């Protein structure tokens, strides 16, 4: 399901801990390590070629972010997202995307809007093809573009840090469930048209549909202009 991926803007740092963190997070996001998979200290040490301490620190950071969890007897494993939490996670991402949209919409200008429409066309195409990897990649492109246009750096940093794990839960849940392709494509089409028309309110409402957020006043549906 198309949700914002984490932009891979890792700071260039040389600490072993940070290298272990990046390698592990990347392995989780690319599904080299699968949801629910146990993370064994010894195997990680030989894989990453480093000692226990930086690996433990990296695992701790991933735990704080919500990618990794500790279960009984201090075994560590990749979080296995529960399908029933998918909508709550999706809405939470949607709340932040709506905020970013508030900052970005006016800034985009005509060229920016055209770029966004192009991103959304590629996304809709992938959804029409029922192509899950393609739609995840296309949505990542769309959401990174929004982020790069957002001039509130605190909000951008916050979303990258706080939402990466939520996006992972949602994509994992959607891989396990049936994606509502038509519904998703229809919501993104509505978004695309609103962006093309420069209709901020329409874009926000379409974004609410994408993220399954109830419109605040359903009795007056869409003030399409």
């Amino acid at each position, binding site marked *: 399901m198309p949700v914002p991926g984490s932009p891979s803007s890792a700071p260039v740092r040389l600490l072993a801990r940070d290298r272990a963190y990046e390698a592990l997070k990347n392995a989780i996001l690319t599904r080299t390590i699968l949801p629910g998979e146990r993370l064994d200290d010894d195997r990680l040490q030989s894989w990453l070629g480093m000692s226990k301490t930086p690996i433990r620190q990296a695992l701790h950071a991933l735990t704080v972010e919500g990618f990794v969890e500790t279960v009984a007897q201090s075994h560590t494993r990749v979080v296995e997202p529960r399908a029933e939490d998918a909508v709550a996670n999706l809405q939470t991402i949607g709340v*932040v995307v709506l*905020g970013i949209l508030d900052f970005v*919409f006016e800034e985009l200008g005509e060229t920016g809007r055209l770029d966004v429409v192009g991103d959304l066309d590629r996304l809709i195409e992938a959804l029409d093809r029922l192509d899950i990897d393609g739609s995840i990649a296309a949505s990542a492109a769309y959401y990174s573009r929004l982020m790069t246009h957002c001039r509130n750096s605190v909000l951008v940093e916050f979303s990258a840090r706080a939402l990466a794990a*939520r996006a992972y839960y949602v994509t994992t849940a959607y891989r396990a469930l049936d994606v509502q392709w038509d519904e998703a494509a229809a919501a993104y089409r509505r978004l695309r048209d609103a962006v093309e028309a420069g209709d901020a309110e329409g874009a926000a409402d379409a974004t609410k549909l994408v993220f399954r*957020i109830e419109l605040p006043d359903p009795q007056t549906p869409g003030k399409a202009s």
Partner: protein
Amino acid sequence: MPIPDAAGAAGAPRELVRDRVYGRLKDAILTGVLLPGERLDEAELRRWLGVSGTPIRQALHTLSLEGLVQTAPQSHSAVIAPRPEQAQETLQTIGVLLAGATLLTLPHLGAEARAAMGEAIDDVIAQLGSGDVPAITRSAESLFGAMLRSCPNPVLVELIERAAPSLSYHVSVASHGLNADFADLARKYAALKSALDRGDDREAVIATKRVFGVPHPTA
């Protein structure tokens, strides 16, 4: 600053040393025992907390992930020194989260809860009139805390409760970077109340954004 308290992080029965150290350091930062920008010397912390270096380093790492401590390779750690120019952006980030909570909560909010919220807003407006900053903060926290208790999305609530202490610290420590106009803020809260009274949820979400200075392109 007007954001809710973190959920009672009461001690689990068998707290890890790391978690205890983390809790004490975080408290010390949030209550101003450790000052913004203050250097965190490991040897000093070991003496103060009576623990070894490992849990201290782990706690500092967690606090750096939360944005309360800054660390640099080959260097000492220090309490974060929020920059005044970021106070506004941080306040807006809080606003994005709370406007989202408002958006998700209002469709599920009955008449009684709306009335209670209206009273809480009256309290914020009264405190803004008095100009007493800690009282303003408390009243706003209680307003949005009530909102979060009614919020049907536990994931969003947890995200906000976890982010709140650090975001709120960044705003309050650097609040001289904000041009707080209490009379203007009181008018914005009054608009929020009036939207709630009318049952105009769309306008109530916009009013929440205005309280926190979040732009609203259609406004």
